[in-house]
């Protein structure tokens, strides 16, 4: 998938990020320890962590870019590629798994032509298999952005996805 991070287009967000970094720096903790909170904020702002943003953080916090890249790739919540407009998360916790979550993922994969961890070619959907979100009473469960779908049945999937396709 091709995408380019445009520094000019994101100028406002970058300024905001600088503010956050300044605020973190003013607190009396080591620069390394403020890395994770800053990455969280950046991920939230940009939707992913482009290398350009990592470089800015590296310069500002005086932490080598290699180390930042190491941290960003270690944790599954940080992403180096943009996410789709709708992020579908299918819970693959044990309770959901024994209640058929795998078949739901297979169905979505087939329906949207998107792999687990990938984004569809039109950037509309990305699909992730999440760790247990702790709503085992509603297993199997799936989230699409903020919407939650519990006690899912396989035959409902197409209709649910259609709602978002048409949006």
């Amino acid at each position, binding site marked *: 998938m091709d995408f380019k991070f445009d520094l000019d287009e994101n100028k406002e967000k970058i300024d905001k990020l600088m503010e956050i970094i300044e605020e973190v720096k003013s607190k009396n903790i*080591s620069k*390394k*320890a*403020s*890395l*994770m*909170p800053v*990455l*969280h904020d950046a991920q939230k702002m940009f939707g992913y962590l482009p290398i350009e943003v990592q470089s800015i953080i590296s310069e500002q916090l005086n*932490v080598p870019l290699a180390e930042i890249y*190491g*941290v960003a790739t*270690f*944790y*599954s*919540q*940080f992403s180096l590629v943009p996410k789709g407009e709708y992020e579908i998360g299918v819970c*693959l*916790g*044990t*309770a959901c*798994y*024994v*209640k058929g979550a795998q*078949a739901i993922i*297979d*169905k979505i994969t*087939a*329906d949207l032509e998107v792999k687990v961890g990938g984004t569809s070619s039109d950037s509309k959907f990305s699909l992730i298999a*999440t*760790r*247990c*979100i*702790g*709503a*085992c*009473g*509603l*297993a199997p*469960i799936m989230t699409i952005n903020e919407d*939650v779908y*519990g006690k899912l049945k*396989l*035959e409902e*999937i*197409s209709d649910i996805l259609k709602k978002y396709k048409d949006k």
Partner: protein
Amino acid sequence: MNIYRSHVLICGGTGCVSSKSDKLQEKFENLLVNKDLDKEIKVVRTGCFGLCEAGPIIIVYPEGSFYSQVKIEDVEEIIDEHLVKGRIVKRLLFKDSIEDDIIKSVEEVEFYKKQKRIALKNCGVIDPEDVDEYIAYDGYMALGKVLTEMTPEEVIETIKDSGLRGRGGGGFSTGLKWGFTAKAQGDQKYVLCNADEGDPGAFMDRSILEGDPHSVIESMAIAGYAIGSNQGYVYIRAEYPIAVDRLQIAIDQAREKGLLGKNIFGTDFEFDMEIRLGAGAFVCGEETALIASIEGERGMPRNKPPYPANKGLWQKPTLINNVETYANIPQIILHGADWFKSMGTEKSSGTKVFALGGKINNTGLIEVPMGTTLREVIYEVGGGIPNGKKFKAVQTGGPSGGCITAKELDTPIDFDSLTAIGSMMGSGGMIIMDEDDCMVDIARYFLDFTVEESCGKCPPCRIGTKRMLEILEKITSGNGEPEDLNRLERLSENIKSSSLCGLGQSASNPVLSTLKHFRDEYEAHVNEKRCPSGLCKDLLSYYIIAEKCKGCTLCIKACPSDAITGERKEVHEIHQDKCIKCGACLDKCPFKAIITK
């Protein structure tokens, strides 16, 4: 202060919020204002009631009426019938709370009868976002007591005497841990709370933080006093947004009330705390990895010793306990070590919270005294297995644990008894499996998890678990060889004995325990290329029996991948190349014309 004649408690746990309990609350509040009842009836959003299966849950006091699966359109009826006319809306009551037309209050429902709530004491009772409600339920009294009446040594002695053991899975004596950290030399010490609850199917820590966050704050301050620390950190999963929000609100409120900060309770003691967010790495539940993560590193475990008690966060003495462990502390301080010891078994005192999930009627969160048997938990509290299916196994301890079979259902649950039967307590997730679940596939599932979550630092775990997963995939796809079972056992032992941290050391447990109890299933996969539970897709295909098919087209409509064709009233056909083997057709067919083989 207003006196209310009725209280409507609405569950605000993640499970119920996912089924829109927040919208119910809005509707209740708006309608009560419209009907001019908001001065008489109060709506309280509480923490988790535990019975997630029946969510969203609403309890109306003083009657204790237990409404389950309430929908937005039911709200007006509850107000008009119950709150105005005093007639309980029977059709919305939880099924077990009405028997022979006699309505039981929530305390009398079977699900709650066997339970003893200590860590969950306030969950589902108070509004977690209101510090005054916590204080009204004896909140911060334990902190006041230790600061004004007890020395740090006495606090540690009390915790030691209580026999409290770490609820995160290790089962190490909490009092000893506190003692070690208190003795360690250092100009700065830290108190950490491990809220990186990563075991799939375990959500007790989340529920405590969502339902009673102040109990953890109070307890960490007590720990700070006991070991001589003024700074705490709670490391919490970013996947728990509601818990993070409520904990932050609670910390802010505690600061405002002077319960965190300088001169707490007018003494010299000072303590403050901050939240640190995890970022989706299971291994960070391991204490040294968690510490590395707070320091801003990749969350990789470190060698022990030195233990965190001596060299932890930023190489300073650090106390680290799990959420549920902390939630027990204020109660132990208030009621004494003997009271706590009077519950549970000799070597595991107190209670334990379990998350029941999978094939069980009452999915949810329960707290029972240690020593309760698995049978009582699954059949009496949990309500047994749904759809008349047969119990096959219960998986405890998540990816580090093992499966327990029907033979062992009468085992009293405590730390040592579960280890003795080849599983472990872990953080308390219990996934119940029935006859439809394939144990080889379950082992494969857990290995898949471990491979994904192995941090990669030590080769036995990084490479070994991957090889094990490959063998298991080979078996479930029908290419297994008899020698594979021995290979699995050999690899298991090697990984166990040579991995750096708990993740690797226990990664093979799901395989070893299923191999021990369900070897016949492995053998069926390997020797007969057959999955006895009919779950391993590569080992089965769906077929239509021509004589039984009436051509009703129900299966065609049910098929999500358009793999079935056929005209009305003619025999249908399944195209194997398109079939995703989901089983939807099999469930739909009224004539039992679809089979797997």
